[in-house]
């Protein structure tokens, strides 16, 4: 597909917007439908699109598997860490009320970080699965 110039150009234009949209969904999750899960999927989709157009090796150079694995672990750890922070600050597990000076800002902060963790994990898992399947058997783009 590398030779299809239309696809390459369109993809090059689309991918930054997809990533931006992922961030929008991510940060708007507190106020409207959305959040880490959807954002993670959209973000991963952008990378997957990149891999489809420019080939798996290119995508692997961009986002190495090692990084994916790290993000995967880091996401879960972030989620768990926020939960433990609640305990450390005297609340229950995943207690956001105690994270800020007042309950509202605490909730805000807690949800923010948890959603970041979720987004990281989800996009990493999507990519991991994609890499695993794409890397199996014949290389479809080479």
């Amino acid at each position, binding site marked *: 597909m590398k030779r299809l110039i239309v696809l390459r150009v369109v993809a090059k234009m689309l991918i930054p917007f997809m990533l931006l949209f992922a961030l929008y969904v991510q940060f708007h999750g507190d106020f409207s439908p959305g959040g880490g899960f959807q954002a993670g999927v959209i973000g991963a989709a952008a990378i997957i699109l990149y891999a489809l157009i420019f080939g798996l090796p290119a995508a692997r150079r961009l986002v190495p598997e090692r990084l994916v*694995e*790290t993000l*995967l*672990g*880091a*996401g*879960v*750890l972030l989620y*768990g*860490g926020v*939960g*433990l922070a*609640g*305990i*450390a600050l005297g*609340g*229950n*597990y*995943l*207690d*956001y*009320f105690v994270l800020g000076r007042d309950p509202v800002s605490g909730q805000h902060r807690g949800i923010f970080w948890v959603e970041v963790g979720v987004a990281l994990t989800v996009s990493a898992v999507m990519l991991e699965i994609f890499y695993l399947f794409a890397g199996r058997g014949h290389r479809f783009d080479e």
Partner: protein
Amino acid sequence: MSAEQLPALVVVAPLVAAPVALLARRALPAWMVATAACGFSFVAALALAVQVTSGGAVSYALGSWPPPWGIEYRVDVLSAFVLVLVSGVATVVAPFAWASASAELERERLYLFYALYCLCVAGLLGMTATGDAFNLFVFMEIASLSSYVLIALGRDRRALLSAYQYLVLGTIGATFYVIGIGLLYLMTGTLNMADMAARLSDISSTRPVLAALAFITVGVSLKLALFPLHLWLPNAYTYAPSAVTAFLAATGTKVSVYVLLRFYFGVFGTRIVLEELPMSQILLALSVVAIVTASLVALWQADLKRLLAYSSIAQIGYITLGISMASREGLTAAVVHLFNHGITKGALFLLVGGVALRAGHAGFDRLQGLARTMPLTSLGIVIAGLSLIGTPGTAGFVSKWYLVLGAIEAGRWWLAAFIVATSLIAVAYIWRFVEAAYLAPLGGATPRAGEAPAAMLVPAWILVAASVWFGFDTSYSVQGAARAAALLLQ
């Protein structure tokens, strides 16, 4: 970190340890993190057990949102009992896994194994600790997905197929479960189990609720390998890495039994499940058939690991038999057998893992005269085997004893005779090992490298000793089970 946080911490410790092990990227630190997390959970579970025994059930509001709005973790006598079993076995298996997984897996991917192990432990503990039906589903998926991968790591080619079949069936089970939960949510508007139970009491005979019961029963039955939904189990247990087999055999199906108990007695209530519906008869019939057929199939297996896998199906039959009695004795027997069989089967699979390490697999051709080259392993298998049979002085006897008592209490003499008689089949299949290991001359395929390394032998013998210990000192196991049974029947 005070004691009130224990219900969360017991689950969170392995859950957080999983990404840490993943990020460590090296086998040794990953293993250390995993072992530490399991050990921490075990201590926490013991502390919880002490706490609930003296002070009654503990409720924990996740995120400080009070139930039924937030997710509630609820630890009572029964769940504390299962938590101790799961975390205890996880802790004992962890050091074993260091030696066994190192030999069975590629070294550079070993850290993944420990990360998944932690996830699986976290999932099983979460299923036990949570009081929320949907949260339970989430943990069920965590435990199942990680166990599929763990099984697929087995070095036999067939491990992949077994894991795939387990995946398909496990997913069907989980889907059925979640359909059941959906129906219940539709009818009650809550996901909190205690709340659900209260709201179900008026509408328990409506068709959606009955359909939910059917879906949950079949879904959980798949997970606990109730006959005839056991077909995924033998291959999964046979081809999985030894440490995984031992851990899952001792805990995986047991937690599903716990879920079944929770839903039958805690959510739907004894009246509808066992009195209005012929659930107890069906469960009884299935248990009886499971015990007979699985024991007989076990008798003819050519591989010790597979034999034990079939024996597990039969033993699960004894547990569900106890549940089907729905009496104090029956439930005590079920819960105590859940515990006793967990440690006994764990011990057996660990020891067989040692044989597999030396011999490649545990086919009976590798066991001829084994007692001469691996005397401690063979002796351990015989002792744990005695417990599997239900010989007096072992843990297995205690559970069979209560099962027989329960059968008699219910006036079912034939059932008591049946329980005693089927133990004879267990005698026969354990005898096959004795015959091969002790009476047969040393075979050509028998491993001659000597005993398994101490890191494998010591955990195995801890469980062997436990299965003897709990045959004499029943103060923890039986009293805990009796309390749990009383709680369920309230």
